[in-house]
């Protein structure tokens, strides 16, 4: 194992975060804080409870998930796309480093960033609404797994993308709608029966539901299904990345 290489990539990527603190951490935290102000404090106080939970508190897991998913994908995709764009990727490809080590370095850094952002958002939420976590260990585990799995997905996106437009395509046009329609701001039990069935095809439902369970002990779908969904998604991403490095897809000719 080339530990020095893993540390070098990890530190290099983390240094980028701290160099661009405003863009990397402060910006997503401010925009999420605005959600809490609008939906949590302003509108939330006038809304009914959902499953005996104050609306402001109910949306906390969804908002954490919204930011964490988008940040994980953006961080990881940018981390690998930028060296491709600049041409500096040659250095990584010519170094004595395996693809597992490359992934640990890049995905590890991207997941760490999103995990930190997730925790900051959680802390920010406590300033606006009452937040209680029933299963803190499961919450941290779910958050960490989500950060890793979606950073893996972002890594695939970064390798696939040929330009900045493609890089932004998935987070903007696919991920954001999936999160909004995945029960971030409502319980899927509030939907008509047919839409409840359709929503179950949205993988983000399982993530939000799982995190909500860790907060309140109740959720739209079982926590086991949530863990299974994350596990399957991670496995799919690892398989695709394995294929990418084996074939050299968009990396080596």
């Amino acid at each position: 194992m080339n530990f020095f290489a893993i540390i070098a990539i990890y530190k290099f990527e983390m240094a980028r975060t701290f160099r661009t603190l405003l863009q990397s951490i402060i910006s997503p935290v401010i925009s999420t804080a605005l959600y809490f102000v609008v939906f949590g404090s302003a509108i939330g106080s006038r809304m009914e409870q959902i499953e005996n939970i104050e609306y402001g508190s109910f949306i906390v897991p969804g908002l954490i998930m919204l930011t964490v998913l988008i940040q994980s994908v953006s961080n990881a995709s940018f981390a690998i796309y930028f060296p491709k764009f600049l041409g500096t990727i040659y250095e990584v490809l010519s170094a004595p480093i395996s693809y597992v080590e490359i992934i640990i370095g890049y995905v590890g850094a991207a997941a760490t960033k999103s995990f930190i952002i997730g925790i900051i958002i959680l802390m920010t939420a406590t300033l606006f609404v009452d937040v209680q976590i029933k299963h803190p260990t499961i919450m941290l585990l779910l958050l960490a797994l989500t950060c890793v799995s979606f950073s893996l997905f972002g890594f695939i996106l970064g390798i696939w993308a040929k330009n900045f437009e493609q890089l932004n395509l998935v987070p903007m046009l696919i991920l954001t709608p999936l999160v909004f329609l995945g029960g971030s701001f409502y319980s899927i039990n509030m939907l008509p029966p047919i839409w409840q069935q359709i929503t179950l095809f949205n993988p983000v439902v399982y993530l939000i539901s799982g995190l909500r369970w860790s907060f309140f002990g109740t959720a739209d779908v079982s926590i086991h299904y949530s863990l299974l969904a994350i596990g399957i998604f991670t496995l799919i991403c690892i398989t695709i990345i394995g294929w990418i490095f084996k074939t050299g897809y968009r990396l080596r000719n």
Partner: protein
Amino acid sequence: MTSIISIKNLTKTYSNGFHALLNLSLEIEEGEILALLGPNGAGKTTLISSVCGLLSVPKNTITIGGFDVSEDYRKSRSLIGLVPQEITIEPFETVMNAVSFSRGLFGKPKNSAYIEQLLTDLSLYNKRNQKNMTLSGGMKRRVMIAKALSHEPKILFLDEPTAGVDVELRKDMWDVIARLKESGVTVILTTHYIEEAEEIADRIGVINKGELLLVEGKNELIQRMGSKNLLIELQEPAKKIPTSLSRFNLTLSNDGMQLNYIYDVRAQKTGIVDLLSELKKASFKLRDLQTSQSTLEEIFVNLVKE
């Protein structure tokens, strides 16, 4: 001398069907400077990319220090430093951090003393805390060399290291390469500049259309393949060359004061004695004689033309 790089029957075909390298074999000796010459699209960069792991190659075609680049990629790649053709460095990173990153990437622990010495040798020490984007083109190229040398490689690949740089910097680069050779590093460089190869290389390889046309010691190459010119200065201008001298294929200068004779140094009879005898018979009065060796550039142009 032992081979540090061994390439056997390497063929590289891109997905669009273009044959970049055709059955290329090459042995590179430890401690030498090998210059690879060739026109654009000849396959020089493909060759370097294949050796350095940027392109996939079949097993048992390339070994570095005895390690197969496909099977023992960790050991083989750790011996190599690569400076690519384009200037590609992280713009927002400082020189020191960029070079330290490269060292870590190649599995080496932090060694500030070595990095500082390296930066000093490349006249970069004063710029160590500057961001790469603030450096001039020449300095950026030095940073790339520093990055390539950060893990103390035994072999350095320089893909057109002096392309687009001014004469002064080019000379500086040549000094850097000479110092590397003194320290035992094997240097392989590609270049368009014949004088560069002539100045610094021990051996020269010529690639064209994916094929290695030859690899030979620089001096032997010039000696073996070079023709010589005999310039004959006359005391009085000649109006034309007499038919008795036609077999020598002489050329007459515009002012009629010089005759030029090209001969092959490898031939048993150069024809010089016969020529001088015929000139005397034709009543030419000679002022002076000069000989000159053909340059590497002329040899290269002839090889590629063939």
